[in-house]
């Protein structure tokens, strides 16, 4: 009863109390390590990336391209039918000019994360980064092409594509 409650619990603390150590805290920094198996679907996906190719799978029932490549169609709930090679060009579906990093830290040079519809996939987009362009010139609908890392530097990962560049 908002009107009837006269006193609301909670004691707000400011930056000052924390910096001056006026409150007691116990700190802990986890040091954990995990190894995630790529599985059969992504395994093939990444092996192809290492070769400089983008691959998807196809469900012949709904005729969708499944990207990132995976072994089953979640809508039809059936096994995917085939592997298909896609182009390394695409269209910007949406993008951002990001001045904050993973832990909300400020970045001096903005990054341009984007969703890119891969050519030949029927409009399915993947998450990646655009670079080598004035960030304020990027537009939804812009055509882009993958810039691959040199062969010897590829490791079978999504980052084997260094970035995407407008064409």
């Amino acid at each position: 009863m908002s009107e009837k409650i006269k006193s609301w619990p909670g004691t707000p603390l400011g930056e000052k109390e924390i910096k001056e150590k006026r409150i007691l805290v116990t700190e802990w920094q986890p040091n954990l390590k995990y190894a995630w198996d790529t599985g059969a679907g992504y395994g093939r996906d990444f092996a192809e990336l290492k070769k400089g190719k983008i691959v998807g799978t196809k469900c012949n029932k709904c005729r969708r391209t499944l990207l990132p490549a995976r072994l089953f169609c979640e809508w039809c709930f059936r096994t995917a039918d085939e592997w298909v090679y896609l182009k390394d060009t695409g269209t910007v579906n949406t993008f951002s000019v990001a001045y904050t990093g993973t832990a909300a830290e400020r970045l001096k040079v903005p990054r341009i994360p984007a969703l890119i519809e891969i050519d030949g996939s029927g409009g399915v987009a993947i998450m990646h980064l655009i670079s080598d362009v004035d960030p304020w010139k990027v537009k939804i609908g812009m055509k882009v092409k993958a810039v691959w890392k040199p062969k010897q530097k590829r490791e079978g990962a999504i980052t084997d594509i260094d970035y995407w560049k407008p064409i």
Partner: protein
Amino acid sequence: MRKVAVVGAGMTKFMRRAQETGKELAWETAKLALDSCELTVKDVDCVVMGTAPDAFDMVHMKHEYLSDGAGAWRKPYVRGVLGGGTGVFTACQAWYHVASGMFDVCLAVTEEKMSSCLPHPQGAFVTCWDQFTESPLGTSLLWFFAWEMNRYMTSHGITEREIALVSVKNKKNALHHPCAQLPGEITVDDVMKSEIMAWPVKRLDVSPTSDGAAVLVFASEEVAKRITDRPVWVQGVGWCLDTMYIGQRDLYYPKYVEYAARMAYDMAGIKDPRREIDIAEPYDPFSYKELHHGEGLLLCDKGEAVRLLVDGETQKTGRQPWCPSGGALGVGNAIAATGVMKVAELFWQLRGEAGERQVPGRPRRGVAQAWGDEMQVGTVVVLGV
């Protein structure tokens, strides 16, 4: 299914950092909510807990840690997790515990303590993306919102300045909320001049991270009629999850919110939500989200929410106020607790107890909604008197 009422509510202040532990926040709030309807923990038959990622506190199985503060010991107890959608889902979950006939009184406790995670709780999200195709890109949570806002704006030809009006409205509404963390009188120019986080998202488009708790008491019709002459009925609940493959849905529209809303409206017998709902609390962790979610809640056509906003229809004194509480943008965003704060706002508004926030015209029905998981879950509750 039995009729279920909300009979009590309580919350803490929402704060950047609370001195209290999560357990203490849960306890203070649970006690406040029970006191508000003159029940004790002995009257509680079961407890549901809503609290979002464990990684905020790095207390694994946080619901166990919070359980004594939630009054859960020697009672059936369960936690539901739908990320940012958790809070409103906790109300759905409490509803079915009572509606099923298994329990007469259910305590729904939500708590969040985001400040424990240093330097910023956003870092805790690093492992919630696909660990092969997304996280290696150095993914930031803000990217998702920026992509969605950009897609939404571009699809409908909406401007950043128009969207900024949501922050202006909600922070102003929050001036009258006794628990608000970031209320204020700001202008569209203030929003436009605030620093770019991930364009088009600017600092004043974003809700703050918060510590806080919010609790509701749910009761069967029989109990509700015995303990209060002003029960607020749960008329509808709904929830729905969409694809996690972000590149396989068009971000311009939250279809999962529409599905959840249709489920709740069908249950409530609502045919035309634009006319049959008096107040709405769409989830507004970002300014554009209030508009995006309002459309998903079928409160207007796609792309039209901004017209309602500009025309003043969603103001506190407008035809259908949105976020009269002040929302996540003004009150704060203690994830799961914010969802329940929104349901609590409906409860107070429908009982005419919202004080200076009270919307005119004796509202009779309201909808609250939250959104979360991998940005593709919608949770909806309709309350009415």
